[in-house]
């Protein structure tokens, strides 16, 4: 009797399986439906838990900013970094998370500028902070330390450390510790912007100025994820500060010039040159305000 029941269940499972494996032509309006589904994301900042991942993914990695500084011949400056000696002041998970992000951005900058000796010190502080936050398992410090020993390993070092941060953030969100993840991302972002701001203060490089103005997109995304936790008084303070930063960016003008893209296949790789161009205009007074607002947020975070 039991066996027969089992057999019936097996037949049902087989039927279900064969149905699920059957070819099904996608609806004619499949792409249209995808596009419509996507417009929901365009309006994103309503933000439920599941949207957090998507919006966090939107925030650019500080490595892009550091790479821009390097390519624009901006000189290395140790003064733009947070000091590892500040570690002892970070006794709450709020501060630890923010500064884990800050030091993460600093580590990328140091690696890109081949300051591998100093980067070891930062790696050690990142290790301490990540252990304080109980996410130390995502960093293979011995391996990272070994890679730091040679200037030839910078690319691997960047990939591994960026990926470790990404894994750690994903884990935090899966473990319902999204607030910590959001704070890490906030710290990372502000440190990248701070580096760019300090660079243009000493050397007004147009490409870097433009990039600073373009950060209005990231500030909007950051505000959206911070607002998920606005009931936390310390995060409410951060939101107010970032609203100020957003306000300082209102005079930044971004003009889009539309042109037809050029697409071709080169050695089996599909290659697109998107001919649309953005032109950023950022008045000096606006730049000054952005720098000032960034310094205020960053100083509060690292103090």
């Amino acid at each position: 009797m039991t066996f027969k029941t089992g057999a019936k269940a097996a037949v049902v499972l087989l039927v279900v399986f064969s149905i699920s494996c059957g070819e099904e032509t996608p609806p004619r309006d499949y792409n249209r439906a995808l596009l419509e589904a996507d417009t929901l994301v365009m309006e994103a900042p309503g933000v439920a838990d599941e949207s957090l991942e998507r919006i966090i993914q939107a925030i650019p990695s500080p490595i892009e900013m550091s790479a821009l500084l390097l390519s624009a011949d901006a000189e290395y400056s140790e003064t733009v970094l947070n000091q590892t000696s500040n570690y002892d002041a970070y006794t709450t998970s709020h501060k630890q998370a923010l500064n884990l992000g800050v030091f993460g951005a600093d580590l990328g900058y140091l690696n890109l500028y081949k300051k591998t000796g100093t980067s070891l010190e930062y790696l050690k502080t990142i290790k301490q902070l990540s252990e304080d936050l109980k996410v130390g398992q995502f960093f293979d410090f011995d391996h990272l330390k070994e890679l730091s020993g040679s200037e030839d390993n910078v690319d691997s070092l960047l990939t591994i450390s960026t990926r470790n941060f990404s894994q750690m953030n994903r884990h935090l969100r899966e473990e319902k510790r999204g607030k910590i993840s959001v704070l890490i991302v906030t710290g990372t972002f502000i440190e990248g912007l701070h580096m760019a701001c300090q660079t243009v203060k000493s050397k007004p490089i147009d490409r870097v100025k433009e990039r600073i103005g373009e950060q209005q997109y990231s500030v909007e995304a950051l505000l959206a994820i911070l607002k998920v936790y606005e009931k936390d008084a310390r995060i409410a303070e951060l939101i107010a500060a970032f609203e100020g930063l957003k306000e300082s960016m209102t005079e930044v003008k971004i003009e889009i010039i539309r042109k037809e893209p050029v697409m071709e296949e080169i050695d089996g790789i599909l290659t697109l040159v998107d001919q649309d161009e953005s032109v950023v205009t950022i008045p000096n007074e606006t730049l000054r305000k952005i720098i000032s607002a960034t310094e205020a947020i960053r100083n509060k975070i690292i103090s």
Partner: protein
Amino acid sequence: MNFCKPKILPVVFFLFIGTTAFGQCNDQLIDTALTKIESFTYLKDFKVRLKKAKKNSPQAARYTVILSKDTKYRFTTTNAKEYPGELIWTLYDSNGVVMSNFVASKSKAYSVVDMTCKKSGRYYLTYSFLGGASGCGVGLLSFRNKTKTIDELIDY
């Protein structure tokens, strides 16, 4: 009894395969994906796992990315072999579709696509599996300066 035996075995077999496949759909897929970025520098990964799409209800994973001008981006896709789906993506901006890795005229999904970006801003990336199949895959976003790799920048 005779009727039942041959029916049970395939079910057990498929259940077993399903469990094995699940094990493959993990971070190791990102390791494989990383081999495709070559001289580009890793930025983000998007792990995508979707059920088979139902009629008029496409399964898709959607992300927002902010791309910067004067940067060359590489989008790669890697599929878990144990699943039937082939990962495809479409990049949109506020004006509509910018590009896709699936070229309909060739019926081909490219696993490596390079894009030279001249317009900074918000873009929307939608991942799905070709034909609405179920699948597991990883989309990877990497970058380099428009003219130089990170290694070249460092040595410059």
